């Protein structure tokens, strides 16, 4: 009985909190302009799916945004996970004062935001201002701290026996890292990777400062430029179509790895 009340309550909360916003975005993305301006929740009378899609792809530069988002997010996350876990291994297994200082330096970014304006200055000095590479470098430096922080704690909780055994068997440090440590780290790197996907793919603020020109705009930038291009009122159908298409890649990925993501984030590292 009590549990029935609980689920009724949860459903009543979930409807305005999650279901309605998503429904509103999707149905209005499929309507022609006049109909969508009413922001109603009814199904379209006239379907304008292909028209809206056309406009978003052509005027909204959707495909350029998608390409740039992939070109930045995928390598940045791969580099963060690789270099971050290598460093975390070193930080977890040594007592050296220098490495401890380096650990604190590297994990400052868990809470502190990157200093955006000096980053532009620095990138300008080395000729990377406004480029995807410059943006990726600042992103990597700003986000690697979280992975180092999570992974160092995780490695500390692992027994050293396996690594010792590998080195007795003659494995070098790189082989030990590659064949012993990395497989053990999979659960925590999955958690880190998920958080990175969400934050790097969706980043708008830093992209706004660090990327210049339509050619290098990521999806959030193309969405913002597209929505801001209408002067007075937003064309809800087109803005929502862009919102749907911008959010789609992550949602599709999520549908595939949903179970592992949720259990990874709740059970953490215990299983995997």
């Amino acid at each position, binding site marked *: 009985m009590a549990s029935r009340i609980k689920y009724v309550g949860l459903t009543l909360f979930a409807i305005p909190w999650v279901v309605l916003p998503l429904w509103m975005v999707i149905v209005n993305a499929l309507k022609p302009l006049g109909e969508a301006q009413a922001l109603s929740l009814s199904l379209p009378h006239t379907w304008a799916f292909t028209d809206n899609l056309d406009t978003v792809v052509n005027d909204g530069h959707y495909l350029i945004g998608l390409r740039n988002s992939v070109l930045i997010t995928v390598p940045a996350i791969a580099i963060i996970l690789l270099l971050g876990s290598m460093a975390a291994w070193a930080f977890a297994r040594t007592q*050296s004062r220098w*490495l401890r200082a380096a650990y604190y330096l590297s994990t400052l970014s868990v809470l502190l935001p990157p200093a955006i304006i000096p980053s532009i200055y620095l990138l300008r000095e080395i000729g990377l201002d406004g480029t995807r590479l410059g943006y990726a470098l*600042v992103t990597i430096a700003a986000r690697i701290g979280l992975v180092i922080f999570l992974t160092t704690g995780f490695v500390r909780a692992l027994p050293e026996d396996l690594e010792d055994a590998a080195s007795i068997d003659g494995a070098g440090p790189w082989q030990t890292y590659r064949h012993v440590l990395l497989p053990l780290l999979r659960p925590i790197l999955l958690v880190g990777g998920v958080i990175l996907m969400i934050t790097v793919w969706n980043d708008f603020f830093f992209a706004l400062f660090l990327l210049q020109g339509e050619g290098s705009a990521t999806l959030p930038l193309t969405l913002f430029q597209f929505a801001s291009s209408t002067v007075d009122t937003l064309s809800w159908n087109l803005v929502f179509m862009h919102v749907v298409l911008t959010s789609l890649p992550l949602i599709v990925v999520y549908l595939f790895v949903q179970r592992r993501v949720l259990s990874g*984030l709740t059970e953490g590292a215990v299983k995997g």
Partner: protein
Amino acid sequence: MASTTLTQATGAPEQTAVRASEQPGPRRRKSPRAGGHWPFFALPAVVLVAVFFALPFLLNAGFAFSDWSGFSEEIGFNGVDNFRTLIDQEIFWPAVRTTLMYAGFMLVFAIGISLSLALLLEQTTRINTIFRSLFFVPVLISPLAAGYIWKGMLASNGPINGMLSFLLPGTVDTAWLGDPTTALPAVALIEAWKWSGLITLVYIAGLKAIPKEMLEAAMIDGANAWTRFWRIRLRMLAPALTFNVAVTLAIALMAYDVIAPTTAGGPGDHTTTLNIAMRLQWGQSFFGPASALSLTVAVLIVVSAVPLVMWMRKKEVN
């Protein structure tokens, strides 16, 4: 460092962590050469952080006190002029106040909603998993897109007012994002919407880490559900709570992405947080004042989140 907080918060094997750190003395390394490679494993990450994170951070402390602008090539030291100008133009203190209020609203919304959801969805049953996964969807949506979605939801002719008009007598047509009194809590609610699915999972992980024996013992001793919640679960949840409060606070103090598409700082300056003001200064080529505002964000995070984490961790131990 707060590493145990997080291993616990994410449900990592805390027991092992304690044992490993209690081992007397560092272990002898087996191979004589072993140890020399450590710096090389740490180096690439450390160099990247030093050049592209730490260096800009130090430079920021300089730029905040400089007259750097888009109008001249030279950058000179000008003391606290930037802050003085921002204060004179009535930008600085209102932005600080707005940012702190935004953070306050977001903390209350995000922590309240997530904690309730976590307590309701703690057990891993099939139906709970469906709900968890539903509440996680907003986490995947970019804060910018979330801003546009809720700009539609909260519009005066939008679905929220439609629902309220249906439930309440009369017609509700409040422009939630256009009204000076509701705009700030409304944008903070959108930010909370975007993050609460993730925060919920951290709480669930924290709840799972509470030993069952402890709750059973309390039950045998006659503690009712209410006492068990306040005296045991909430206290044992402290690490997850600390982590969530600190991260939420940091996110809120940096607020920009949700505000830009919804209110762009308005009406008036009622939602002009420090980063919104910073972007405006930057847009006008006042790079010095922009740096000063950006430095203020960093300082606010340091003076609020860091003592908070230390204070809450102290409470955890007791």
